[in-house]
């Protein structure tokens, strides 16, 4: 399968904050949505910075559309739409002015499409952006990111701070976007429920290190959590588990194959596991 985005052993150290992004590798195939999950400060924005060249990586390779993107590769950036968390654009502009500025940047800027999005998202084109609500500014950023017909969307916490209804609307827009088979989305978020709805793959990052990348189908159909008593836990084979977390009266154990675990350990309760719970087990629990 061809990849629109590929990271190989990407590392970056910030000596002042003592934070290290440690050998991050993952890939995003064409036509897919990859959810990039991790707690605040896990390294999601740093990784996106390395992908977009806003941060210089210390080592490793990042390939976009099969090529390492340099500063001069403006043709690659033509094919990427970006949305950052918060205020993406100067507040004294109106959406109309933003469109005029963007026309000067993108050869494929589609003013008609942009206006359609403004209408769809109910964004007044003449109002100054600083008078928009937070939800409206995020919608505007998403409209701008989509209006030059990009192939790859990179969304850094684009849905955080939005209410559930707005988030749902945005997720529908993203799903529409990937209907085209050469379109892909990298979406970083700590709102795991959003990713459960749209992502095809989930990459977990914690403390600057990649924990795992799995397909959502694998997570939904195979991954499970075993609720064990102390004695049951001690009887488990370590190679069957990914991580575990001791709680007051039980030990939760994350396993990659719930059915197999149920067959092997008949007296243990095996539950479906949510992304939230996986994240908690991976971040707060201990790795097996």
């Amino acid at each position, binding site marked *: 399968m061809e990849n629109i985005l590929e990271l190989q052993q990407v590392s970056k150290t910030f000596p002042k904050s003592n934070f290290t992004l440690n050998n991050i590798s993952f890939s995003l195939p064409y036509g897919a949505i990859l959810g990039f999950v991790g707690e605040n400060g896990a390294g999601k924005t740093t990784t996106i*910075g390395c992908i*977009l*060249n*806003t*941060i*210089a990586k210390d080592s490793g390779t990042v390939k976009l559309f099969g090529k390492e993107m340099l*500063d*001069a590769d*403006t*043709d690659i*950036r*033509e094919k*990427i739409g*970006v949305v*950052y968390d*918060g*205020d*993406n*654009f*100067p*507040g*004294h*502009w109106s959406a109309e*002015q933003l469109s*005029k*500025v*963007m*026309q*000067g*940047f*993108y*050869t494929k800027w589609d003013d008609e499409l942009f206006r359609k999005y403004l209408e769809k998202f109910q964004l007044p084109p003449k109002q100054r952006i600083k008078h928009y609500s937070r939800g409206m500014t995020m919608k505007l950023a998403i409209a701008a990111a989509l209006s030059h017909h990009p192939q790859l969307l*990179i969304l850094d916490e684009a849905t955080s701070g939005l209410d559930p209804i707005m988030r749902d609307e945005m997720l529908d827009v993203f799903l529409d976007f990937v209907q085209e088979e050469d379109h892909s989305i990298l979406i970083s978020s700590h709102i795991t429920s959003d990713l459960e709805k749209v992502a095809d793959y989930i990459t977990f990052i914690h403390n600057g290190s990649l924990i795992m990348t799995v397909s959502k189908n694998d997570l939904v159909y195979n991954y499970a959590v075993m609720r064990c008593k102390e004695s049951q836990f001690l009887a488990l084979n370590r190679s069957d588990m990914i991580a575990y977390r001791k709680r007051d009266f039980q030990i939760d154990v994350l396993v990659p194959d719930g059915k197999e675990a149920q067959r092997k350990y008949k007296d243990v309760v095996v539950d479906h596991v949510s992304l939230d719970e996986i994240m908690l087990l991976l971040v707060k629990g201990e790795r097996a």
Partner: protein
Amino acid sequence: MKGLLRNNLYGTLSNAKVFAGFMILFGIFGVAVISQSVQIGYVMIGSIGFSLSAIIVAKNEFTTKWGKYKLTLPVRRADIVKSQFLNQVIWLLVGTFFVGVEVGLSWLFHGCPFDQHIAVLTLFALGISMNLFMGAIFFPMFYAGGEERGEMFWMIAILCAFGIDYTIITILNDLLEPGVTTIVFGAVALIVCSMAAFGVSYPLTVGIFNRKEY
């Protein structure tokens, strides 16, 4: 480049409109009264003020994520810097136009306010030179020292520009005999030195900006 210039224009325009209003009122006053110091003040303020609005735009872009967002657009970092230098020159021309109209009208109504006609040339050269030195000092300092200190850097840039021009004029006055030739030579020296500084500052700023992380 078109997008960058439009971006800079929208950014500068709102501040420049306010400043233009002030300059028109000040200009009417300057034309109405016969005062050499008012003329000098008008030329200096006009030459620097518009470009200062342009410089402040660069700083304001980092109060939102726009400064970082621009790096994800299909433009090179060198072009971002180039557009900022160009923007400063454009607003220098706007300022020079205002100043030219005011000085011209004042001259028309009251005659030359200076002992020698040629002194007006030095005044214009001083304004343009201060403007260019200000930009030449501000941009590399701004990107090297951090966007959050933008206000401090433009103040330092203005003071340094004034200091450099003052030094050039003092040296020339010490070295050369007073006269028309000295005035013309002084004006040329100010323009040449400031243009050279502006020219050197551009690749320096690009070099610094290329290494910046956001």
